[in-house]
């Protein structure tokens, strides 16, 4: 298979794109953690992987990678009760961010791309925070779900701050990656 130029999108390529990005999301959620000094807590970079998938690989890959990757991370980290909620919420987050990021994708202006991506990430943040608040309310009640909200917003801000530069850096360093979008 050629490494440059538009590639035909076979089922194998779609499956492998989704599988690799799912694993990337799971690893970014489980392994890649940045310590926060004041609270001695950690910030996982699962949302960075979701926004990266949405901007680089499109909404459908982001839906599967975001949903399945975070659900697998929940299963492996010992929080399987959150896996169905994570699958739906992070899946929808990736899908909406990818769809908005893909609007008017013929534009070549980098400023427009960044603004579109920023808007997509903001909408993704709203979807994720609302989704977790709703899911958390069902599972643990409104009070406990509300406490998680600031953490989710910070996590998403980190996702935006990391996801956009990473997507731009990977596009620049490995241009054929744009052909994996579907």
């Amino acid at each position, binding site marked *: 298979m050629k490494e440059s130029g538009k590639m035909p999108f076979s089922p194998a390529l779609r*499956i492998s794109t989704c599988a690799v990005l799912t694993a990337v999301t799971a690893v970014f959620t489980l392994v890649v953690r940045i310590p926060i000094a004041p609270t001695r807590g950690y910030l996982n970079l699962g949302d960075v992987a979701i926004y990266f998938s949405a901007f680089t690989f499109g909404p459908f890959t982001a839906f599967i990678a975001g949903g399945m990757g975070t659900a697998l991370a929940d299963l492996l980290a010992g929080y399987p009760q959150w896996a169905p909620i994570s699958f739906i919420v992070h899946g929808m987050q990736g899908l909406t961010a990818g769809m908005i990021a893909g609007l008017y994708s013929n534009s070549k202006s980098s400023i427009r791309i960044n603004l579109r991506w920023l808007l997509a990430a903001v909408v993704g943040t709203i979807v994720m925070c609302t989704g977790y608040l709703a899911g958390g309310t069902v599972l643990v009640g409104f009070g406990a779900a509300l406490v998680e909200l600031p953490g989710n917003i910070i996590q998403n801000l980190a996702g935006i701050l990391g996801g956009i530069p990473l997507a731009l850096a990977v596009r620049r360093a490995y241009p054929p990656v744009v052909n*994996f979008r579907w």
Partner: protein
Amino acid sequence: MVTSFFQPGSSFVHHLDPRPKLIILIVFIIVFFLPMKLMLLSLYMLTICLITLAFLGFAELVRPIRSILPILLMVMLLTPPFHRSGVIIFAPFGFPLITSGGMFEALRLAARFSSITLLFYLYLRTTDNDNLVLSLRWFGISFNLALIMTIALRYIPYLTRLYSNALDAHRLRGSSVNVHRKSFYRRFLKSVPVLTSVLIQSAKGITVLAMALETRGLGRKNRRTSLLNLKSGSDLVFDFIYAGILITLLIFCFIIFH
């Protein structure tokens, strides 16, 4: 790094087929979300605790509960202020902070969350990844989704090693990603080159993986065969009978005590 939650064993729950186990899990979760008395919910929770204790042991019962203790504490502290029904128990400055209705709701949520956690734990602790994916396939999840899940589970350890190697390579070049003195933002910025390396390597692996899948015949019209299969025959029938008995008891208790 943990790549499976499964703990090999020879208990009855380990030998039970993953399909009836999954049905039991789903039915229990649906029942937990139905309106019921706290006493009945506690009875269900006690049953799940006893099953875990009998087949997995005390340590395996404590482990999931310990992991959700902070959440349970939050539920117990933060649920009562949002419910004003019942008798007022504590009202600082005339504001009803804790009521009997709020306390019952907190207990109900805590019992339900603990039970759901234990159920998932019991299922995943006694079902390996391959059987989990095969049972999901049996319940109608598409072949492509199941394949994505299987490949992703195989890829997670590889990507973890890749991340570790990239981190070491960047450290050798003088990058100090995990220095605790630096501000969060600087630490975050320092990690961007490492993550870029991991993502580029991962993206390069996509075409190789696609070629490997095509070589193995993915996308062809021929009838698909499977290397791994779930059990069939009389064993499966008995497993479904056990599941049926448990579900009948569950629903019977619900009707009687409701």
